């Protein structure tokens, strides 16, 4: 078990390392650097101004040196610029030259400086991640019970009218991407044109205090897209369990149908959906980005879109490393949980 765990951890670190290298490489290509320079300086900068801006801030050092500085294995740059001002990578606002540490990379816990938010990356990411976490929590609270109930009801009696109806509903939700369902929800439930002004079409207020009024639509949108898939998996696994021998025995013994479903079938039917729920996380991340943009909820997905639009290099790196870890950790949990739920399988 420990060996398995350690090996997975090693793979995780290698994957995150490789991905950060790729993101670092792409965001540091010259046209992209030009974009961030123009965003940070001003949009009418000439080629010379861009060049001196980039040189002064250490962007034009060789690739591996920049990456080493970001990681924290090489000392941060100290550059005396063309404007006679000395800039240090590790000198955060309000720090004296003597206080400035030599190394400041992610190994030292320093995630760098966001050119877009004009702040340190670390604190921004923590607050935004908290907001997204809140959104995800509500999504999970709605999505998991709803999809499991849906799947169990459909799979309980395969081929029945309930099954057909619920399966069609599940297919429809998987066919409706978030940017479509949110548009339809807003048009129906929040627009003044149709008249059903039940809830708000924006979730900006939900960042401080979430109510049904401002949080229902974003949560519903993400939950609905993920729900169909989990419900279908649950249905398939439930239908399979219901055909097995021990269920038939139980029925022949004359136990009431609902007791059989709850006591005998449920536990075995829930093994497959558990792994699927965990593997849904990377998909949900996507939905989060879209929904946060549409409903103007400023979580990590919103930050990702803003940072990518302005080539905020260190912000993008932080966000991608985080999302990779989320994806890989959920995969690990899904694997381990599978073993615990299903005693027939052993970790190798």
């Amino acid at each position, binding site marked *: 078990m420990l060996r398995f765990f350690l090996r997975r951890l090693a*793979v995780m670190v290698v*994957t995150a390392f*490789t*991905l950060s290298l790729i*993101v670092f490489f*792409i*965001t540091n*290509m*010259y*046209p*992209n650097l*030009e*974009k961030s320079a123009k965003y940070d300086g001003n949009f009418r900068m000439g080629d010379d101004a861009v060049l001196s801006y980039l040189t002064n801030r250490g962007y034009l050092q060789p690739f591996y040196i920049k990456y080493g500085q970001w990681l924290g294995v090489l000392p941060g740059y100290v550059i005396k610029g063309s404007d006679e001002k000395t800039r240090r990578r590790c000198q955060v606002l309000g720090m004296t030259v003597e206080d400035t540490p030599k190394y400041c990379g992610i190994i030292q816990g320093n995630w760098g400086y966001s050119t877009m938010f004009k702040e340190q990356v670390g604190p921004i990411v923590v607050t935004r991640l908290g907001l997204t976490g809140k959104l995800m929590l509500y999504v999970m609270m709605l999505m998991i019970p709803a999809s499991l109930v849906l799947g169990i009801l459909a799979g309980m009696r395969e081929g029945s009218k309930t099954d057909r109806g619920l399966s069609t509903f599940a*297919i*429809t939700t*998987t*066919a*409706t*991407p978030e*940017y*479509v369902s949110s*548009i*339809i929800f*807003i*048009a129906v439930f*929040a*627009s*003044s*044109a*149709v008249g059903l002004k039940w809830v708000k*079409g924006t979730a900006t207020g939900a960042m401080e205090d979430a109510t049904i009024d401002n949080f229902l639509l974003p949560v519903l949108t993400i939950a609905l897209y993920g729900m169909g898939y989990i419900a279908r998996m649950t249905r398939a696994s439930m239908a399979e369990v219901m055909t097995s021998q021990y269920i038939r025995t139980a029925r022949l013994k004359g136990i009431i149908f609902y007791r059989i479903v709850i006591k005998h079938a449920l536990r075995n039917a829930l093994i497959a959906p558990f792994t699927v729920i965990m593997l849904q996380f*990377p998909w949900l*991340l*996507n939905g989060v*980005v*879209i929904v946060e*943009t*549409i409903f103007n909820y400023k979580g990590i997905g919103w930050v*990702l*879109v803003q940072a*990518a*639009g302005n*080539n905020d290099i260190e912000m*993008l790196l932080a*966000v*991608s490393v985080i*999302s*990779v870890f989320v*994806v*890989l950790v959920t995969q690990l949990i899904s694997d381990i949980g599978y073993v615990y739920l299903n005693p027939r399988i052993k970790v190798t």
Partner: protein
Amino acid sequence: MQSLTWIEIIGGISFQLLPVWIALILTFGFSNYYKRRLGLYGKLFDSTIGMIGFAIVMFWVFSGIFAGIFDWIITHDPLHQVSGMKNKLPGTPMRGAEEGEYPYYLFGGDHLARDVFSRMIAGGTVVILIAPLATLFAFMVGITLGLPAGYYGKRLDTNLSFLANLILAFPVILLFYLLVTPEIRATGLPQYLTVVLFAFPLIFIAVLINSRFQTTPTARNIYLTLALFIVGWTYISVINQPESKITLFNSIDLFDIDGGLLTVFVAVVFVNSPTVFRIVRGLTMDIKTRDYVAAAQTRGEGAWYIMLWEILPNARGPLIVDFCLRIGYTTILLGTLGFFGLGLEPESPNWGATINGGRKLLSIHPTPAIVPSVALVSLVLGLNLLADGLREESLRD
């Protein structure tokens, strides 16, 4: 002139779509009549769900083709702005309509005074053009890499799986933002990616022919030269663009593809192929333990012959089903790209961009956003239902 009522709007649209209805009726009539001779496709007509899905999909295919090639169905130029038609309700008469012009905006006008109905149909053309082809390419990449990974296993499998997981661990939207921006296009990165990804169909076809006709070298040489010539030339024409990073073959370049379109295409193939790879790899690992594979190995067949002509045909059921589902997923991805304004021209009538454009006035004037949304969902739903019908029918025998 008076505005149209809802019944008149529906009537007008049904009349505009007349060629599509005729084509659909012909397709269904012929297929249903000959369904016993048409294999899996014919069996589709035994399942209601499959038939509904197929009808919806073919509706969009026909309307996309007719609008794209013959310019039928569309009532106005999807890019043309008519003054006075901004944010008009469905069925509004067109101001200053000339002789021969369609006198109404059937689904109203959008925020730039363009016809919503025409943009919906034109958006369908974009999807029908890109999604199936991109999915096919993703399948060729996935199959060419997944078969050897599953068949040989060991080192090769470990390395390729690591690569696939690497791409899968990326959030799709971040990947799009990294690959599909004008700045990145200036660096030539998508073009190099094109060179790599589009080489796989070339390799796939070459290996396919070579393994089949290996025992008759003359036939093989003829077929191989012919195929490589045609596909190779197309490949060179696609990767070569004047005034870009790859201009080596300007003299024999046959056609040029719009850079934005190509970038979108490559990004979608790139995102889809790791998943296809995983599916093919899994299927191969399962099928290679069968007796007929052992028999082929005993006969002394080559590894690629076994992979392509023994294993692949036996994996076709799940692959066809996944192909349908994946076209739907690709449609969603294309919508996502359009929604974030990546890749295609901002005024292009693709559904994602149109939805995003209509989003700002959603609470006052919902039609421009709702119409493409419903169109997109119907196509994806049709593909999912079709996949479901195919799965049911292929499991039956």
